[in-house]
């Protein structure tokens, strides 16, 4: 039993960053089996070292959630999440394997011909379940409609990483007759899943502890081994509902009521936090006092982001290429999504000057649905 008060760990000062990591790697090197990575700012990507026990624990918990959603060993599951250094794809793959499904791992497909060939593979191999992110579903629906394909049928889609709206759920039901179940997870931990009622995320309090403080969600993962996750601020706002759900489950639910200030999600399940923008401005090294970020869609499931900087005075020369390069490398996952053409960026400078030392960041989201 844990007693006493623990400090809250904020996502921008956690042990997953390089400055704290070397000692951990040195101390637990014999236990670490895998290294995965997550966003973070450039020069400071979040590193997630996992032991075999942790990985197994994560897969088991995730697979229990998948089973509660209704996935069983008869299902054929395609994992359409990023692999490589990212933890999302491998975690979903090992959980589906733990359930006993037939597992296809595709990674995050990004262009028309790849998605069209996915449709033929789905039909040929009778794949009935997809694990992916909402922006991919958006892309998939677009190409289905564009190519007049109407014989792709899926039973279940499990999503994570981004918010999913009712209009997408209805669109998916209409075109591929699939039910969408959203899951709530971060790189650091898998938290919970939606049930048939689609009202909050059920979580197992024996696996993951959730506390709400000033509306902020704090998580503690009980089987974390290499890096203990205690009272970790995940960056979302919400509340816990312990009443019995009408789906019949006695497990409590966490409801999300919003993101932390200015946190925004982009295509490819990329999350951008204010501290990353502050770090970006520091790296650009210009007297920027105001930053307006306008997010729009340039094609279904793909985002267009315009950075507008307000300066305190005009420098002698502005190297736009240098600034764009710094923006591209905002974080490891941002750079990856940019390289995969899921994100487009543009730069603009305000004509008026801003005095004072305080930096203001504004986010304007013009997308048709919230991520």
């Amino acid at each position, binding site marked *: 039993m844990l007693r006493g008060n623990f400090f809250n760990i904020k996502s921008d000062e956690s042990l997953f960053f390089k400055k704290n990591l070397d000692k951990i790697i040195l101390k637990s090197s014999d236990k670490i*089996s*895998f290294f995965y990575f997550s966003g973070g700012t450039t020069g400071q990507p979040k590193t997630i070292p996992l032991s075999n026990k942790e990985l197994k624990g994560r897969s088991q918990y995730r697979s229990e959630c998948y089973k509660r959603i209704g996935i069983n*060993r008869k299902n054929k599951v395609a994992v359409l999440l990023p692999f490589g250094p990212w933890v999302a794809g491998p975690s979903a793959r090992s959980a589906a394997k733990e359930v006993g499904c037939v597992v*296809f791992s595709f990674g995050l497909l990004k262009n028309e011909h790849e998605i069209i060939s996915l449709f033929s593979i789905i039909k040929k191999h009778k794949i009935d379940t997809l694990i992916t992110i909402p922006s991919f579903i958006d892309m998939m629906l677009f190409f289905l409609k564009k190519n007049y394909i109407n014989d792709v049928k899926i039973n279940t889609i499990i999503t994570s990483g981004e918010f999913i709206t009712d209009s997408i759920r209805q669109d998916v039901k209409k075109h591929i007759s699939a039910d969408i179940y959203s899951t709530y997870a971060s790189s650091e931990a898998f938290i919970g899943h939606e049930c048939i009622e689609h009202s909050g995320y059920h979580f197992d309090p024996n696996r993951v502890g959730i506390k709400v403080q000033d509306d902020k969600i704090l998580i503690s993962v009980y089987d974390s081994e290499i890096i203990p996750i205690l009272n970790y601020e995940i960056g979302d706002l919400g509340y816990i509902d312990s009443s019995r759900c009408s789906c019949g489950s006695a497990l409590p639910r966490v409801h999300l009521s919003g993101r932390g200030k200015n946190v925004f999600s982009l295509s490819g399940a990329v999350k951008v936090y204010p501290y990353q923008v502050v770090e970006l401005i520091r790296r650009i090294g210009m007297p920027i006092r105001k930053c307006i970020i306008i997010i729009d869609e340039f094609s279904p499931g793909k985002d267009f982001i315009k950075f507008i900087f307000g300066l305190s005075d005009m420098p002698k020369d502005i190297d736009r290429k240098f600034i764009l390069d710094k923006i591209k490398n905002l974080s490891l996952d941002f750079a990856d999504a940019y*390289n995969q053409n899921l994100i487009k960026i543009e730069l603009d400078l305000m004509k008026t000057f801003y005095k004072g030392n305080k930096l203001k960041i504004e986010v304007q989201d013009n997308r048709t649905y919230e991520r």
Partner: protein
Amino acid sequence: MRDKKYKKILKRYREHPFYKKRGINSINEIPFIDSQEVIDIYKMSNQADSMVFFTSGTTGNPKAIYYGKFDISYMANYIKWFCDIEGANQNDKVLVLMDQSFWGVGYITGLGHIKAGNCVIPVDNDLPKDKIKEIIDIVKPTIISSLPSVLLEVGDVIDGYKFRIIETTGEKLNNKERRVIEQIYGGEVFDAYGLTEAIIGVECKNHDGYHFNSDRLLLEIVDPYNKEARPDEEWGELVVSTIDEYNTPIIRYLSGDLCKVSYKKCSCGLCYPKVWIKDRVRPTINLHEGYKIEKGEIAKLFDRAIGRGIFIDAEAIKNESKILLNLFINDAVDDSQQEKITLEFVNYSYELMHMIRNNKLEFKFIIQ
């Protein structure tokens, strides 16, 4: 010992639906199988509780390979055996720089290293080069496992970082490439030889041929034309039989590789037999990241596209960002015919489609 192996293979043969229908009584009666029949084996294997990876092989038709739970464990154990030969130890951190989703080799290599007690950093080779460097800086891996072409491509960002061991696989590695890779990455290169259908062997410190575990694999050498058995240490086509694979047993598979096998003790001290690979039996073009296509298949694509056998030869020239495929022909083709030929290439396999649509492969028609 060999009798015991034969019995095991015969048992697999009688159990699997694909082989069972052929009704064989002794090992000598088992017919050879080719890559098309391997697809049938995968189709008829038990698909429950399996992982599916894709490959197009060298002769088209993307194959979906269903690896059962035991097969994955068997292959991971075999990779662990490779690690022992290379000298990987429990303190090693392994950067597996390969495709981690579609192609199974990256996943299985990672699992094998975990079995060997290493720590694994799985990284997709699509990740930008500077990001790969960032990961190397943070984790400081001691072993890198990748394809020779990827290692050469990423080489310019390595910037003096030294690895202890460099594992290569998936492509034929020539001596020049080996020297360049060793110079850039600072360690010793150990090349591994495998087919999509079976993992074969790994080099020892002598770097002369690939050791294979004869308890796990039965390798035969046959004449490429009349398929008669060749004695040890004579070149011929390699025929592979896996002994312990349950889900998809590969029995007497004609690999298309020109090889020789020797059971003599190696001077490195290992008693395991060795296999050497010289070339493909049929002329083949190496394209990108381990993907190959037989010249005979290219000729068929020409036939299908324009109904004329004008293809003579092909050569692939690699530059920084793309591959130029020179197609030597004996008659002119107009723009629409060139487009038809390109379309045949696009439809031939997933990898070719991926390369062409992403502008990584360009065709040049040269009349001779």
